[in-house]
């Protein structure tokens, strides 16, 4: 069957009609336990929440900041951001959105225990400075903050709702309250979430009236459900499964900006020796992984930041050229052996590598790496842990070798560079990486307001860090979306699923 082009961002994708769709059922590969992304910040949770709740700003399918509940925003100085609220926007319970609601939502995101708190750590104050005006002040200048009040790190609910359901937002009883294109009508964990078009939404009325997202964890069942017509498609299909869907559905693969990498703790043996890190880099057959494990539905990564992340800062050709300069470390056991021989750990060593159970492809990559390392005399013991356990262990210094599996929530490369390469980011800098050139470039980028210049600085930081190999980037992943032939998702792109994606699902023309 004809397969859509891998990257739909070029705008050649099909367009749909406005024929109304009464009900659309899509399969999700696993269940949600909470709809509240500040409690459970998985990608599937975003898929639902972004339909129901909005943020101050929105992200366009092509990765640009757009008006959301704020119609305009400005940055009077490097540390101050001012947002003007849309008037007439209402929550699905009928109440109008006020500055109080926005402030309460931001406070909820900042609160201790919230999964989003990290993004708001640099905020000094949030105030209503006018009837419909919110002013946020930062502790230190940070150009990347512009992306923080977007759906990835802030979803707005009403103050009353948050107060009433403190600690219980997003359960089957309380559901969610938002201003978005859809409202949740029912949520049964392990079964489904059902959404209904929100007639009072300020945007264009979506075609799909009722949207049901069914959780079908078993791959076989999921496919049979599609073939027997019980579902109209699936989101986030695992790569190994996607091909078997191609006979019954249109499967779209789009880069989802996520990256999988190995993080070496450069402060400790054996990875304090760059030769060991290089030996690993040569040993890992990354193109083999992409071909075998990911069935070609991914791209070998040369750095943490995927090319789609630069959209707002640098144009494509510049990115291409910049990435071409990064060292390649093509798979070669011979080279790996040679590097290891140069290190202080010629005779090999043994260590553990854990992967989250929600990412079996990471496990397989680990097994492939372990197989290659065996030839170097290095024993890699692969272990499966729960996602929560893996996240809890994702702290610098915990383990010498770790998987980094990251889904950026913004369209700004600094989201990755600031967290994972800056020596000051002690909570996230897994390799204990310290490079004054890199730190310097990152600091300058924070205060730099010029887009191109920021891009140049950030790209430079990546290039500076690359030879040191604090991370071994493995691949940039793609997400597979399958839809029955009579439906189409307009404007599929790297940012397609960040906003109210269901509003762009249409009947095929």
């Amino acid at each position, binding site marked *: 069957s004809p397969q859509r082009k891998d990257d739909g961002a070029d705008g050649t994708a099909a367009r749909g009609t406005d024929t109304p769709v009464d009900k659309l059922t899509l399969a999700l590969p696993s*269940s949600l*336990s*909470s709809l509240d992304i500040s*409690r*459970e910040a998985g990608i599937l949770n975003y898929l639902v929440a972004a339909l129901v709740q909005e943020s101050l700003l929105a992200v366009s399918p092509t990765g640009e900041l757009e008006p959301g509940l704020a119609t305009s925003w400005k940055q009077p100085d490097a540390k101050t951001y001012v947002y003007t609220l849309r008037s007439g926007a209402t929550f699905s319970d009928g109440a109008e959105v006020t500055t109080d609601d926005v402030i309460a939502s931001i406070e909820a995101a900042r609160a*201790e*225990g919230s999964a989003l708190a990290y993004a708001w750590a640099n905020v000094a104050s949030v105030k209503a400075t006018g009837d419909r005006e919110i002013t946020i002040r930062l502790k230190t200048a940070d150009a990347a903050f512009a992306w923080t009040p977007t759906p990835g790190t802030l979803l707005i609910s009403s103050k009353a709702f948050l107060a009433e359901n403190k*600690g*219980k*937002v*997003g*359960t*089957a*009883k309380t559901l969610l309250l938002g201003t978005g294109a859809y409202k949740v009508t029912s949520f*049964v*964990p*392990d*079964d*489904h979430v059902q959404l209904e078009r929100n007639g009072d939404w300020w945007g264009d009325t979506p075609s799909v009236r009722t949207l049901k997202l*069914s*959780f*079908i*964890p*078993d791959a*076989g*069942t*999921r496919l*049979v*459900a599609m*073939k*027997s017509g*019980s579902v109209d498609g699936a989101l986030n299909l695992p790569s190994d499964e996607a091909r078997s869907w191609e006979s019954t559905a249109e499967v779209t693969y789009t880069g989802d900006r996520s990256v999988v990498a190995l993080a070496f703790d450069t402060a400790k043996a054996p990875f304090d020796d760059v030769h060991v890190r290089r030996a690993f880099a040569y040993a890992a057959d990354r193109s083999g992984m992409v071909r075998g494990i990911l069935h070609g539905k991914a791209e070998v990564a040369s750095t943490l930041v995927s090319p789609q992340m630069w959209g707002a800062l640098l144009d494509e050709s510049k990115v291409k050229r910049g990435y071409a300069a990064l060292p390649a470390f093509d798979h070669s056991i011979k080279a790996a052996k040679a590097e290891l021989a140069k290190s202080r750990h010629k005779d090999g060593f043994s260590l553990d590598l854990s992967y989250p*159970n929600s990412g079996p492809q990471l496990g397989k990559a680990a097994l492939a790496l372990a197989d290659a390392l065996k030839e170097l005399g290095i024993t890699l013991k692969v272990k499966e842990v*729960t*996602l*929560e*356990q893996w*996240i*809890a262990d994702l702290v610098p210094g915990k383990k010498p070798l770790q998987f980094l599996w990251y889904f950026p929530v913004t369209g700004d490369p600094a989201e990755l560079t600031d967290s994972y390469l800056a020596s000051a980011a002690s909570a996230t800098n897994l390799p204990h990486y310290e490079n004054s050139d890199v730190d310097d470039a990152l600091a300058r980028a924070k205060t730099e307001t010029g887009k191109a210049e920021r891009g140049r600085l950030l790209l430079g930081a990546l290039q500076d860090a690359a030879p040191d190999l604090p991370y071994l980037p493995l691949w940039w992943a793609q997400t597979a979306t399958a839809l029955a032939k009579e439906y189409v998702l307009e404007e599929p792109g790297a940012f397609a699923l960040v906003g109210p994606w269901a509003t762009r699902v249409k009947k095929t023309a």
Partner: protein
Amino acid sequence: MTAELPATGAPFGGRPVPVPRLRERLGTALPWRYVARRLAGTAALLAVLSVAVFALVRLAPGDPARTLLGARSATPDALAAVRARYRLDEPLAAQYGHWLLDAVHGDLGVSIRTGADVTAVLGDRFALTVQLVLLGFAVALLVGLPLGVLAGLRARRASDRVAQSLGVVALSTPAFAGGLLLIYVFSLLLGWFPAYGTGDGGAGDRLLHLILPAVTLGLAVTGVLLKLTRAAVIRELDREHVTFARARGVPTRTVLTRYVLRGTVVPVTTGIGLVLAYLLAGTVMVEQVYALPGLGQLLVSSVTFRDVPVVQAEALLIAALICLANLVTDLLHPLADPRLRPAPTAPHRAKRQA
């Protein structure tokens, strides 16, 4: 002949024995003392199980407070809050007491993962799982019993071997494998049943959605029941009273239903507790395969995410269910078999004392 001897064990034991009428008989079949003893036994069993369930939080490696916090950041404040909430600083016995008291009052704590009330979470899923288990049980009964009886009646003949082999295959097929096969055949190839979920129509739709899962669930149990029934039937057929009934011309159908099958009731119902345990265990796999939001899926995900309060609550619920099933079979047995009735005036003994 020898009139000076009391009629020991003699058939003519002259004294007429007052014979209770039918209704009184039913009453005496289950005297309250027996019921009370069974209830006490069940309570004791439940108490032991509840201690085991309570101990689960201690089983997880590390600090229980951290376990109860889950993956949330363990700030001193948060830890203290959890300690207070679960009274972790009190002696174990007191903790257990509080926990049990709360549980009895329906307060099973709060889910670590979602923050939702555990009672509410369980409540929603309970109904579905009970429906699934009952349907699975019905399937097992409808298939396992007749096949078992057939196999028993035709023991060691071809039809018995076939039935037995089918039972063994059912018993040996893990639910995930069997489920996938059934989905493939009945929903994809034949399109008779939906492949997943609970459906959103009424009771009829729900039933339609639960048929395949129930069959999958019932399959393994069918194997167990078939085996039990077959063995019981063979044993019964071998009994002298069956031969005697046939030898005196009791109609064949009566012999089969009243003599043979009647005798299998007790051994088969004894297996019911076992069967329930099987069924409950099966829901884990079946709910996973058919994407059903029941207790089984909840258990797997709660275990995977170490959502200890939910796991505890669920374990307690299952323990209670099993105790209940055992109680029911215990109370059914004396109704089915008069010999098991506690007989305060067993004539045999009474006569000896007379």
